[in-house]
């Protein structure tokens, strides 16, 4: 029986997580977290994860009620919450409670021309890092490995095919890789595996595939996105090699936020909107 007949007769339906890229992203981030707990010794941090996720959902619920948002927005909220779990550390309960509130709050309070400008998870990490003495990001927590890179990349690919932000990841990684290779291999004369080890770092990959690809806070046009992602790559490299800042990409994204507006001003384009059901499924339904 041909595939389209199966689909029409609804004997075979697309799994729901493939219909909505946000659900797919939730699944990917959620499995990274569970993988960390099972395999990377993060079981000591379960309280931290629970606090971050609870306060994210709480903040998102408040926003849904106060601003009469669609219930559907819990997905974006939880994505930010999981992003925080995977990067943000603090031993203070209050900081762990505050970070998700700042992240979700930034979405609804810091807006420009009808859309939020900061990447919520990034904002939720950077503000506590700047304002408190209780927060940190552990860039070594994933280790460095090909398998990890493979899973991150393939999971990300599925999301990015739908939202069309793969250009951002690729540009950022290529820029960073080119600059790191030039410095470490060609200038400093380290062996190539030094660069490889840096690029395969789980935190860098997570950042590249899941943080700077948020379609709402990246420039709308591809040209703009490529310039913007390259800028983040250059900034990250500079912050790492000049100031020895291990969390360089996170700061680079924060600094580059105003440039998103500039790129949109320069190249125009429509703001991305999440749609719960993709066009493909709609076509099948019709």
């Amino acid at each position, binding site marked *: 029986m041909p595939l389209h007949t199966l689909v029409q007769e609804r004997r075979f339906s697309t799994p729901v997580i493939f219909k909505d890229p946000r659900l797919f992203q939730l699944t990917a981030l959620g499995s990274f977290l569970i993988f960390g707990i099972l395999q990377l010794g993060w079981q000591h941090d379960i309280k931290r994860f629970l606090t971050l996720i609870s306060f994210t959902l709480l903040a998102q619920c408040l926003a849904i009620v106060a601003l009469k948002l669609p219930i559907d927005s819990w997905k974006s909220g939880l994505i930010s919450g999981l992003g925080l779990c995977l990067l943000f550390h603090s031993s203070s309960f209050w900081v762990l409670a505050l970070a998700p509130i700042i992240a979700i709050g930034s979405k609804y309070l810091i807006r420009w021309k009808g859309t939020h400008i900061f990447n919520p998870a990034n904002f939720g990490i950077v503000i506590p890092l700047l304002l408190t003495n209780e927060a940190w990001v552990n860039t070594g927590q994933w280790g460095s490995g090909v398998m990890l890179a493979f899973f991150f990349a393939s999971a990300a690919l599925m999301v990015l095919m739908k939202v069309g932000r793969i250009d951002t990841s690729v540009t950022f990684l290529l820029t960073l890789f080119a600059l790191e290779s030039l410095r470490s291999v060609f200038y400093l004369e380290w062996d190539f595996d030094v660069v490889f080890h840096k690029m395969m770092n789980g935190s860098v990959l997570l950042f590249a595939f899941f943080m700077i690809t948020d379609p709402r806070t990246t420039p709308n046009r591809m040209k703009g996105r490529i310039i913007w992602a390259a800028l983040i790559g250059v900034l990250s490299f500079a912050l790492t090699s000049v100031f*020895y800042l291990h969390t360089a990409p996170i700061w680079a994204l924060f600094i580059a936020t105003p440039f998103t507006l500039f790129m949109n001003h320069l190249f125009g384009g429509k703001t991305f909107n999440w749609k719960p059901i993709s066009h493909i499924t709609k076509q099948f339904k019709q």
Partner: protein
Amino acid sequence: MKNLKTLIVFALMMVQIEGVMAFCGFYVAKADAKLFNNRSEVILVRNGNRTVVTMSNDFKGNVRDFAMVVPVPVVLSEHDIRVVNRSIFDKLNDYSAPRLVEYYDEHPCAPIMREESVLEFSKTMQANYTSMDLAFNLNEDYGVAIEAEYQIGEYDILILSATESDGLRRWLTDNDYTIPQDADEVLNPYIKSNMKFFVVKVNLEKVASQETEYLSPIQITYSSDKFMLPIRLGMANADGPQDLVVYALTDQGRVECANYRTVQLPTDRNIPTYVKSKFGEFYKSVFERSWKYEGQNAVFLEYAWDVSPQNRVKCDPCVGPPPIQGDLAEAGVNWLNSTGKAYFTRLHVRYERDKFPQDLQFQVTPNKERYQARYVVTHPASGDFTCDEGQAYLKDLEMRRSKEVDELRVLTGWVTKHQSGYINEFSNRRLDRQDLEEERNEFIPTGSSGGKGPGGNQFPWTLPIVFVSLAFFIGLTSRLVKKLEAVRSVS
């Protein structure tokens, strides 16, 4: 004719030579077993961008054969270099070493309180070095400049800068050092990173005997944004993995590695009492197994605690006296009078070239959570167990011992022929002996070692399995939320 001079540029610290090998590892109680060979120790103190590095120096042999080369980020001035007392390393090590705690069961029929005791876990370690007198001649052809020259303690110290590795290598070779071939390749990145080379030899006039067994650790202080240990140099001549123990002191909290995983070793595990006599071997196995399980590329946390003078509980239980203010000052802590806070972290790294391509980068975190690698043995009560509580106790004891044996197998992979005897040591005192055979089969651990925790190999396919299960879960949740939304829109 000059003596053979061989120089091995050691990671942070030392020039090491074959033949004088004397790494003794560390001892447990009276066990004289060699444990961690090729082990070195460093004290790292970090406050803002001020770093104090103290390098252990357990060289034994003719001091003419000692030399050491350390890449440092800046040219050090004379007051930035000093020698400290060796006892600071022993003190920090004794205080923070993985520990075995002993508990005693109360007698079930007539409970009496007993106190816990702790098995002292002491160790010694030695580094092995060698080299020769440094001929302090400068030749511009080498592209090597002597930035500074000092006499500190029993040492003559030079700070070299170089423009290219070949020149530096030739300079060292021409001054009768034999540089391992691989070291040449690693020298270049350090030169290009504008690192200086801190070169040390013993001033023969300053030591009473050339056959000394004691050379002071050297401490250097500098300000730099780099908070790292250049381990790559030491790998140049390494034959197999090397162990490095870092004692870190900061004003903020724990120190963790920024470019490798920092992993906690399994702790608070109950193990059989017969492990007590070979606790050193036990811990060595635990470490080795965890190291393999974590992919041989992780940094292990062995201890973390607030050692501020006003913090009264500096260990629980203590295996060695906690460092006092004088010890912290000796290690390079100079901020106690202003903030009064000091946090101690002990990290253990087993590294080799394949798994550790980058130097170790560290970061200070505000994490003040305590951690200790702690293992527990519980001694059974003795006496008459004929009362009901006594009989229940014996049954529980067998269960407990069975679990201890399992735990030991998971932690170390050890399976001993004595273990069923250990589990059933008190069985003949049970009054319900007729039922025993049946039960005993449940208690005796069977099967090979494995299972979760350090023991089995890391399973890379966990991620996709978790992914698929979570996808189903999220799919279901999403449908539920949609229904909720539909209900809301209808109402």
